[in-house]
């Protein structure tokens, strides 16, 4: 039965809260308000204020409190309203959550799930439109997820809660209304990239918010007889190199689509791995379609111009054929 990405996430939370007393959701406006993106609507009424806990606007403290609660034996899900505000909590995420296991010689570990909305496209301007997944994917000790489908939205959360280490989960702001099949528990994992469309001529590598655009680009190209493979990375750390290289070796051409800025981007890391490991199998240089190196502007036409668009993806593919 078809559902939305938002409802799939809500069902994942409901299920997790019902199954395990240790699980609780904490964040700004997750309770009474129902969640900024309505993910947790109704959960306060169902599970009470201890388990669906409204936090003040104190990202640093409530993320840190999530870490402490995880150390104390609970299984917190901390929702940061958006990636933009996660910068206020970066110290706790990097210096504590990600480092504690190693720094303590393996004595402590932090089974914490941090969820946040990410990305641009709603005319929210520079401070509400970041795509910083690549920053988080840089940090050892974190597992970084980017569910782009309804099924991943439904089933990544329980798997993330079963992890022993901190997991950061990015939900693109334009994905919440997405419709699709939630599928079954066993169909989702936290390890592998997934081929969302098969093709022979080039591999489009995408994740999160750029998956839908890449699939649209592949559809347009297919009408011209150019069949592209679309690989959804899904797990941004650790990268599933095996699936990545298998697809690129097959098509011999790669275009990476990243909503982050080009310099120092996750796209740069993916391109580097392709160059390091299958340079001689390539028939064309690796191409990247990234956001323009500019704070994301408010005006619609400027925002559109700043972000990776279907036409730019199609054009990039043409240059590698």
């Amino acid at each position, binding site marked *: 039965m078809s559902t939305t990405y938002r409802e799939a996430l809500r069902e994942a939370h409901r299920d997790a809260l019902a199954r395990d007393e240790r699980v609780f959701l904490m964040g700004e406006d997750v309770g009474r308000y129902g969640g900024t993106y309505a993910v947790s609507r109704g959960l306060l009424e169902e599970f009470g204020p201890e388990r669906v806990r409204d936090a003040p606007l104190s990202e640093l403290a409530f993320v840190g*409190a999530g870490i402490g609660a995880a*150390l104390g034996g609970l299984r917190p899900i901390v929702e940061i309203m958006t990636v933009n505000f996660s910068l206020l909590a970066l110290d706790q995420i990097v210096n504590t959550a990600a480092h504690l296991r190693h720094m303590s010689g393996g004595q402590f570990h932090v089974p914490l799930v941090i969820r946040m909305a990410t990305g641009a496209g709603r005319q929210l301007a520079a401070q509400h439109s970041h795509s910083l997944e690549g920053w988080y994917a840089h940090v050892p000790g974190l597992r970084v997820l980017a569910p782009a489908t309804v099924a991943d939205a439904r089933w990544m959360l329980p798997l993330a809660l079963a992890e*022993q280490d901190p997991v950061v989960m990015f939900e693109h702001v334009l994905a919440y209304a997405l419709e699709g099949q939630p599928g079954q528990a066993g169909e989702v994992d936290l390890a592998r990239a997934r081929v969302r469309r098969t093709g022979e001529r080039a591999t489009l590598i995408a994740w999160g918010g750029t998956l839908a655009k890449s699939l649209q680009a592949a559809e347009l190209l297919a009408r011209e007889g150019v069949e592209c493979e679309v690989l959804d990375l899904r797990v941004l750390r650790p990268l599933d190199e095996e699936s990545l290289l298998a697809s690129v070796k097959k098509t011999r051409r790669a275009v990476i689509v990243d909503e982050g800025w080009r310099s120092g981007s996750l796209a740069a890391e993916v391109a580097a791995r392709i160059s390091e490991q299958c340079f001689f199998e390539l028939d064309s240089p690796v191409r990247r379609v990234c956001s323009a190196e500019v704070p994301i502007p408010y005006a619609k036409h400027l925002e559109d111009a700043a972000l990776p668009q279907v036409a730019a993806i199609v054009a990039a593919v043409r240059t590698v054929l």
Partner: protein
Amino acid sequence: MPPAVLAPVPYAKPFALELVRQMLRIRRFEERCAELYGAGAIRGFLHLYIGEEAVAAGAVSALQPEDALVGTYREHGHALVRGIPAGVILAEMFGRREGCCRGRGGSMHLFDAGTRFYGGNAIVGGGLPLAVGLALADQRLARASVTACFFGEGAAAEGAFHESLNLAALWRLPVLFCCENNLYAMGTRLERSQSEPDLCLRARAFRMRAERVDGMDVVAVHEATRAAAAEVRAGRGPFFLEFRTYRFRAHSMFDPDLYREKAEVEAWKQRGPLHTFTARLKEQGLLEEQEFLALEREVVAEVEAAVVFAAAGTLEPAEDLLRDVCAEGRS
């Protein structure tokens, strides 16, 4: 500087001697650390606690085994009093596998699961949110534990301080905030960096009970901590203790200590926690010089045994570098 009028020591001899022993352990241990730093056996940052011993000795001894402790990068004293063996701490500072964190943490990152010792945090204010979360778990799981969170007065300028005090008070969490006010955040004096230097007043702004304590008096520290911890344990919400103390040594081994007057340091040394306490005990007939010397020998022997243990420690093979970044089998 707080008044130097000290009340009689209200303890029976064994506990009074135990407080002397703990302060002496910290003092002798750290003096040896400074030498070992000079000799190159310890590297990186080394922040000495000398002068502030009454706080760790008095406060940590007032906690229960089920309580949690969150510390800072100046945490050798707390670790020693909490019960991490001196040899294991020193081995950590030597970067050896026998150290409490197998050499991954060093002086600033001592951790010990067995005694619920949660660091060893080298980000000023970084431990406060963690303490809030540990207390949240205790509250949710109905455990009668207290989380004692140590931090310096410099942390009171961090956002984490305000956010954490607010959360702890709002949710009535069992956190005992232990502010070690040694007056200087590295080289910057409190009045030069914070518009309201009355830290208790700031804690009270969050509707949290707060008390200023003479941190050079181990009895005052112990009594205040015991009473505050009992309040916290009884579910009456967090408590804030400000211990007025002073570090006799520089901020770290790299600090030329140019920002304080020598006379100020000397004046505080007159109020040193160890000799003032032993003088009181002697005056009250609770301590003989021979007993003190015996205690001294015992402590020195412990420290020397720790040096031998650390020096004999082994190095973790470099192949194990990536161990414990993630759970086994995960990356």
